[in-house]
């Protein structure tokens, strides 16, 4: 074979042919997987790459909805947390992109000490009030949960996941110790009876000074070719986790 007066070996020709074949098949595969290709006419195809974006928002009681993506939740404006009190704090996901999308949120709740070290205390005492429209993955446990939005989140739309939270009142009694000096008592009455002049009854609580933490990671994926996209990116079968597919 001649190429502008240069001879090409059979090996070079074979390599070029292979490259062209791979390029061709890759192009077909890419077109199948590419999410946002629209053909206006058989002769005028438009490639439109819609940006997909998801944000996390928060609306503290009495406040405005604000975006907290890659930031921190406020949770409440109260100076101190009241045990057992329900706080209205709406945590939502927002479709801030240019196309509809499926969304899931990975939530972690746990306790830390004053230095930020994780503690083996009950995440169940951090109660998050869930909204409807979500399914909770079966593999979720008391610390880690995955919530799937059952239908696509429209462009520009916001969907609340939690409407509030509270710390269960059990933190006030679990692990409570009643002490006079080094001696521990079973009840307040027993301590009061034993207390002599100048004795001080001291109460200690396991959860006192501990910080409860909530982490949320929102993930979104395209609605085109969604079953494959969800399986590929999230590793789950969309229908099995309760997602209603629209394409």
């Amino acid at each position: 074979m001649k190429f502008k007066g240069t001879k090409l070996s059979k090996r070079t020709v074979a390599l070029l042919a292979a490259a062209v074949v791979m390029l061709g098949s890759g192009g077909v595969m890419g077109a199948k997987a590419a999410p946002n290709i629209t053909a206006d006419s058989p002769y005028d195809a438009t490639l439109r790459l819609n940006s997909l974006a998801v944000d996390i928002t928060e609306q503290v009681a009495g406040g405005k909805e604000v975006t907290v993506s890659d930031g921190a939740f406020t949770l409440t404006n109260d100076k101190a947390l009241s045990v057992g009190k329900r706080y209205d704090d709406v945590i939502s996901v927002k479709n801030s992109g240019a196309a509809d999308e499926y969304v899931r949120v990975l939530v972690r709740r746990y306790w830390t000490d004053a230095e930020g070290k994780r503690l083996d205390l009950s995440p169940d005492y951090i109660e998050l009030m869930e909204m409807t429209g979500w399914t909770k993955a079966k593999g979720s446990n008391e610390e880690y949960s995955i919530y799937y939005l059952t239908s696509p989140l429209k462009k520009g739309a916001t969907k609340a996941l939690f409407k509030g939270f509270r710390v269960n009142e059990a933190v006030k009694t679990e692990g409570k110790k009643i002490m006079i000096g080094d001696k521990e008592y079973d009840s307040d009455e027993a301590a009061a009876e034993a207390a002599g002049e100048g004795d001080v009854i001291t109460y200690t609580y396991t959860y006192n000074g501990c910080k409860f933490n909530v982490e949320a990671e929102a993930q979104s994926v395209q609605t085109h070719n969604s079953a494959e996209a969800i399986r590929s990116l999230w590793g789950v079968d969309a229908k099995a986790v309760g997602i209603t597919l629209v394409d």
Partner: protein
Amino acid sequence: MKAVKKRTILLVVAIALVLSMTVGLTMAYFSDSTAAEGGIPVTLGGQTTIIEQQNDDNKVIQIKNTGETDVLVRVAVYGPTAISYTGEGWTDGGDGYYYYDSILPAGKTSSKLTAKWDIPEDLGDDYSVVVVQESDQVVYNASGRIVKPEADPAWALVPKK
């Protein structure tokens, strides 16, 4: 020599084409993610102190919340004779204690409670009056109601809200 150079160029172009397709395939699905986190420390237990003004036949009592949490408060006074109480915002629990009608927020001081007694003539000045005050952190249940302090199930009165 020229043929070898061109062949090398063609090989490089072919490899580049294949690699470019590989990159394209890994970006086939559109996705996005973001995260946020937050938390609040929990403070348990309450701290209060008595502020009192001693007069001849009465004491004017106030309770100050010196802790970081909201508390419930009750007061009892023991003297040489029966004690009569007056004070706006205080209610007789019928158990010897007067209960503050409201939650006492952190850093705040209650309204005044006056405890009055008759001075027995035979005792002169030789008597004592003792003020007992108890407080406990405000805790809510799932229904949003304030629960009675677990330290004393006989705690007679709690504010509704």
